[in-house]
């Protein structure tokens, strides 16, 4: 049984308990122990990096120190958290002068970044600790060739020099994990392009226009649903369709579903146990197709 | 050896220096120095009557050592040494010093002190020649034959030059045919001459013509006397020495006899095997037996050993009218004896498939310039038609993308220099032949720097070729329309464009050939940080390498256009010719030698020698000693500075000479200031001292200059001896660390200085009494300043008391 310190971040516990629920159920079923540590904080994502980059690295490092002290590697659900923590982890491991500066700040809370732990996204844990064949073995409800528009979001892959997760131009890991569930990961225009989520609250019109593009492209490609990994992407595309309806007077009804939810369902978890009411765009067509 | 009888000749430069230096006093002093048998003062001694005085004194046996204080020492030295040698004296017994720039001029405000310093300088010179031993002239064989590696534009031109000059030339080419990139690329900018012209040297063999160009097949290239062409061959091993190399070449079997093939093409018509034609960008297929283009050199077919079925088939053997096909041919090794080697291996296109956003290798309609060149070539796979590889339809909308993998810090940071012109060339050729083609070139900058290149660019615009200033981020493919879309920002319009294209042509970076590294190892050549063969000095020694006798030219040193390639080819040929012309290499034995009894086979010197002149040889008793190759040794002395036991010495500057000179320079003070000894390297360091004098700058006379070949010769010992001999301060003046004329010496000296400083501290001596300076000729002012500052500093530190 491999154990990881689960890093939840802010948005998932605050807005998307269904993501956390599905992830816990799925990972536990696959033999991963998730440990909840005390005192974890915000990962210090782009909005905070925009205020002060170095302080944000210190906050990220603080969370990594908690895991170092518990002798556990970190797993995240939100890809935004993955990027913040993994980027900080790599930068501080590799840049001595920066590490010294950040450790000076961490001294004030009695912590020291040692750089002896890894930060992983749960997809990496699925690949390295469980493996595709094991996942397939545990599937009790294959997804019946569901046409999934895979959308990993930006921060799973980029900046690739620091994240080193997958080939940033030809990523395959997410698509392989979707197809392992018996679904089909389809091609669609501008698949790797940002959803615009981080602009919400500052330039809502721009953010919505970018989100709409994604909904249009996935619809045109004939997707049954969009599968996400990031709570921001989810919000932008799910809640976003409500705003698209009022702003653009267009209705797409494109279900948006987290990969963790698809994984849970295919592993046999009853959809009724997954708090799917949190989805704004109803998932009935997806659930019906899966059967 | 008979006792030294030293003649000292002092030039007062037409009495100019007499106003400062007391020549009478100096002469009187010198006459009292033991073994000085003649002192003469005159206007100048490097020519005319003055020179005759020296020569006569030698011939009459009055003197057997010569010291001359001459203005413009180097010029003087050449004349004097030659004259003296002709008179029968060994050139190592001559020492020429400069009391004008190194004494009279800089110390003209303190003539008494200058005079005393002059005495010290002359005393040191007498010490040097007193202890000198005769130096031999060595002769090494220089075979009048040259190996040219690479049969492209550069190789062919260099080979022809040398063959015409009477040298025996071996032109070795790894492909089955000559021509290289030039043959593939077709027309050449800016005059659009065709490949057939541009490869060959222009001469019409065996007739004296002055035509500007000649098709290579009509030039009779391979009939040039003395020229041996070995295709399908590569270099395995190189042994020997400059002037006398032994090269092992492996010749791959062609399976077709060069003597019998009549190029009738019957064999290809019966060959059952078809493979994609790599040469022609896989736009068509070829047979297992083939030639690349209708005109090839040598005009002999070749069999692709991996595709051919050999004896299982042998259909070609049956039909060949001259029985030229020999399936039993084997690889053979050939040994060539040559005096010199010229590397002309060219360059190739970078593999753009790593730049994934451009989808080269994935989308068939994304091609490279060289692949487009094959289409443009009328003899090529599409007979001059520009088509889309995916569906063979004509390409009516073409987008060129510049700087693919070039000027890109992720792949190749440099600019490949010719790609802008290549795009313009291809665009204008296509537009001329097919005016209804829509062509756009996406660029970061358009670089048309050569002669007539700007007119080329102008013509392109006049023909309606469009230019977008912007580097595409991605090339997309629309599967329904089977169209490519180039996603680019037009920066000048400040608008995003999605350019539709039938064909996208990438301008990839130009990089060294795949086996450059391996060849560099075989030849012992250095590659620069981009993997190209390194020129010794691009300004002053172009096409030369650090290895005497091995030259490089053409694209192998950096991507370049045809005119520049030609230039370099001819340069390399001239240099090889110069090197070998007299049939022998004559060199003074001003080299290092090893005292084998002391040598502890520690391996320091072979590793440090910048010229790889030292090797370890095994003695009969099993232990190793260092051995210096006189031909490769440059006499810099870095090895002397490196050897921990003093087992290696320079013939022309022995340890006893160094010590004696040091003592002499410090033996006469005449100033109230502390004596400072400045070790100056004979290149930049000494030149800085020269220039400070020539520019009439001032520094005090307590600073005494000790010239060494390279500051790398200095051991910590020398520095400590200087203090013992009476120096209150020591300066080391060498070349800039990254510009040492002997490659590593200056950096080695820096290390020694650091160690010496630490030792001085241990002895309770202030380490600031020792300083190293890195100066060039132009920094004479910095030298004067350094000398003054050092003097002041040492004065402040007080008198050094050694126990």
């Amino acid at each position: 049984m491999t154990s990881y310190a689960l890093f939840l971040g802010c948005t998932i516990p605050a807005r998307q308990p269904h993501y956390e629920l599905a992830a816990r159920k799925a990972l536990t079923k696959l033999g991963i122990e998730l440990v909840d540590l005390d005192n974890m904080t915000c990962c210090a994502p782009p909005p905070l990096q925009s205020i002060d980059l170095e302080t944000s690295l210190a906050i990220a490092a603080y969370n990594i120190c908690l895991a170092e002290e518990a002798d556990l590697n970190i797993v995240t659900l939100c890809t935004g958290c993955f990027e913040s923590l993994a980027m900080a982890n790599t930068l501080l491991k590799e840049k001595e002068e920066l590490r010294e500066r950040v450790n000076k700040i961490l001294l004030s809370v009695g912590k020291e970044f040692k750089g002896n732990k890894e930060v992983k996204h749960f997809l990496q844990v699925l690949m390295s600790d469980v493996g595709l064949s094991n996942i397939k073995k545990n599937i009790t409800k294959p997804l019946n060739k569901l046409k999934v528009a895979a959308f990993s979001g930006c921060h799973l892959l980029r900046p690739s020099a620091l994240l080193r997760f997958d080939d940033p131009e030809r990523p395959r890991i997410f698509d392989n994990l979707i197809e392992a569930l018996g679904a089909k990961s389809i091609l669609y225009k501008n698949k790797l392009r940002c959803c615009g989520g981080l602009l919400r609250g500052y330039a809502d019109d721009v953010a919505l226009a970018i989100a709409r593009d994604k909904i249009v492209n996935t619809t045109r490609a004939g997707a049954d649903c969009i599968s996400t990994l990031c709570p921001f992407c989810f919000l932008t595309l799910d809640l976003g369709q409500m705003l698209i309806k009022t702003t653009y007077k267009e209705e797409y009804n494109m279900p948006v579903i987290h990969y963790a939810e698809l994984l849970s369902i295919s592993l046999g978890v009853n959809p009724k146990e997954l708090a799917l009411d949190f989805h704004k765009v109803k998932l009935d067509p997806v659930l019906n197709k899966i059967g | 050896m008979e006792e030294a009888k030293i003649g000292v000749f002092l030039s007062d430069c037409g009495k100019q220096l007499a106003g400062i230096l007391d020549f009478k006093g100096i002469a009187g002093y010198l006459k009292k120095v033991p073994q000085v048998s003649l002192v003469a003062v005159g206007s100048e001694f490097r020519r005319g009557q003055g020179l005759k005085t020296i020569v006569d004194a030698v011939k009459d046996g009055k003197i057997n050592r010569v010291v001359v204080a001459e203005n413009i020492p180097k010029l003087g030295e050449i004349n004097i040494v030659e004259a003296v040698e002709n008179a029968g004296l060994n050139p190592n017994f001559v020492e020429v010093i400069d009391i004008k720039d190194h004494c009279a001029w800089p110390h003209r405000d303190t003539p008494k002190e200058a005079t005393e310093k002059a005495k010290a300088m002359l005393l040191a010179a007498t010490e040097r020649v007193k202890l000198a031993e005769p130096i031999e002239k060595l002769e090494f064989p220089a075979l009048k034959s040259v190996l040219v590696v690479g049969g492209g534009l550069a190789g062919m031109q260099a080979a022809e030059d040398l063959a015409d000059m009477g040298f025996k030339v071996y032109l070795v080419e790894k492909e089955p045919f000559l021509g290289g990139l030039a043959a593939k690329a077709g027309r050449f900018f800016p005059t659009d001459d065709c490949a057939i012209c541009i490869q060959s040297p222009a001469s019409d063999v065996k007739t004296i013509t002055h035509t500007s160009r000649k098709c290579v097949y009509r030039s009779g290239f391979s009939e040039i006397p003395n020229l041996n062409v070995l295709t399908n061959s590569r270099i395995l091993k190189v042994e020997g020495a400059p002037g006398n190399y032994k090269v092992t070449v492996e010749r791959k079997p062609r399976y077709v006899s060069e003597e019998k093939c009549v190029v009738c093409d019957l064999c290809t018509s019966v060959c059952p095997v078809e493979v994609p034609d790599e040469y022609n960008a896989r736009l068509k297929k070829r047979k297992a037996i083939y030639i690349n283009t209708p005109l090839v050199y040598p005009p002999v077919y070749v069999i692709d050993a991996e595709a051919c079925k050999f004896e299982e088939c042998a259909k070609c053997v049956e039909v060949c009218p001259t029985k030229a096909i020999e399936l039993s041919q084997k690889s053979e090794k050939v040994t060539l004896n040559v005096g010199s080697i010229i590397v002309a291996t060219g360059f190739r296109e970078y593999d753009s498939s790593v730049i994934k956003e451009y989808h080269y290798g994935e989308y068939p309609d994304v091609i490279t310039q060289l692949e487009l060149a094959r289409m443009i070539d009328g003899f090529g796979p599409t007979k001059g038609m520009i088509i889309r590889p995916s569906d063979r339809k004509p390409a009516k909308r073409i987008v060129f993308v510049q700087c693919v993998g070039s000027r890109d810090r992720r792949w190749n940071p440099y600019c490949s220099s010719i790609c802008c012109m290549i795009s313009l060339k291809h665009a204008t050729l296509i537009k001329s032949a097919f005016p209804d083609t829509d062509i756009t070139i996406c660029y970061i900058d358009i670089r048309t720097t050569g002669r007539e290149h700007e007119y080329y660019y102008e013509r392109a615009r006049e023909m309606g070729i469009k230019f977008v200033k912007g580097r595409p981020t991605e090339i997309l493919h629309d599967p329904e329309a089977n169209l490519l879309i180039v996603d680019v920002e037009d920066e000048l319009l400040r608008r995003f464009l999605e350019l539709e294209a039938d064909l996208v042509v990438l301008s990839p970076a130009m990089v060294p050939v795949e086996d450059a590294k391996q060849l560099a190892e075989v030849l012992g050549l250095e590659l620069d940080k981009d993997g190209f063969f390194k020129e010794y000095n691009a300004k002053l020694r172009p096409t030369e390498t650090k290895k005497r006798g091995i030259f490089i030219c053409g694209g192998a040193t950096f991507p370049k256009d045809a005119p520049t390639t030609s230039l370099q080819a001819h340069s390399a040929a001239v240099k090889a010719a110069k090197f070998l012309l007299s049939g022998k290499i004559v060199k003074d034995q001003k080299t290092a030698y090893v005292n084998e009894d002391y040598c502890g086979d520690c391996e320091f010197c072979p590793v440090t020698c910048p010229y790889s002149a030292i090797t370890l040889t095994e003695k009969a008793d099993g232990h190793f000693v260092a051995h210096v190759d006189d031909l490769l040794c440059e006499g810099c002395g870095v090895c002397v500075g490196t050897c921990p036991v003093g087992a290696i010495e320079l013939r022309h500057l022995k340890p006893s000479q160094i010590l004696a000179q040091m003592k002499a320079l410090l033996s006469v003070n005449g100033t109230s200031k502390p004596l400072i000894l400045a070790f100056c390297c004979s290149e930049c360091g000494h030149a800085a001292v020269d220039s400070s004098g020539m520019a009439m700058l001032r520094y005090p006379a307590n600073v005494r200059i000790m010239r060494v070949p390279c500051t790398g010769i200095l051991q910590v010992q020398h520095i400590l001896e200087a203090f013992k001999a009476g120096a209150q301060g020591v300066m080391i003046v060498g070349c800039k660390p990254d510009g040492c004329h002997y490659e590593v010496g200056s950096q080695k000296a820096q290390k020694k200085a650091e160690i010496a400083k630490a030792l001085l501290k241990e002895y309770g001596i202030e380490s600031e009494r020792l300083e190293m300076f890195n100066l060039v000729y132009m920094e004479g002012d910095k030298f004067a300043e350094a000398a003054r500052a050092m003097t002041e500093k040492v004065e402040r530190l007080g008198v050094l008391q050694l126990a």
Partner: protein
Amino acid sequence: MAEGIQKKTSTKDFAKEITGRLGGETITLCYQCGTCAASCPVAKITDKYNPREIIRLALLGLKDEVLSGGAIWLCSSCYNCQERCPQKVEIADVIYALRNIAIREGNMPNIYAEFAAGLMSEGRIVPISKFLEKKRAEFGLPPLKPAGVEAVRKILSTAEFDKIQFKKGEAQ
């Protein structure tokens, strides 16, 4: 425009100020090829934002225009530009550096002030409602572990984050 560049005063050393900040070290490598602009999802949707132009303005020293304009807040941090840049300019990180400088000079959109406030009061930029915390048990989720608010506050104070004037700025 007849006034051209004279109207805006160029700040000498603005480029140096940027390269001296974490994230901004590579800005001077830019040779204006436009790859970043073409890779940018925001630039494709609105002409209010173009990363190449922002860098150009910054390198020309037009500090005021860069820092008080609204453009630098429109980057969605997708990092596509940084992936594709042939000079390895860390464009998205440069935007962070520019934002960091802008905030110190008193220009900051309201939303960022809210984020900072959330962080300083609860250790999270998105506060978690008590209501939702209670609902967790209903779903079968374990109770949330307490956040390290004290630690965050200490870190922010040591890093002098709290000294940054979180003025509600005038960014468009």
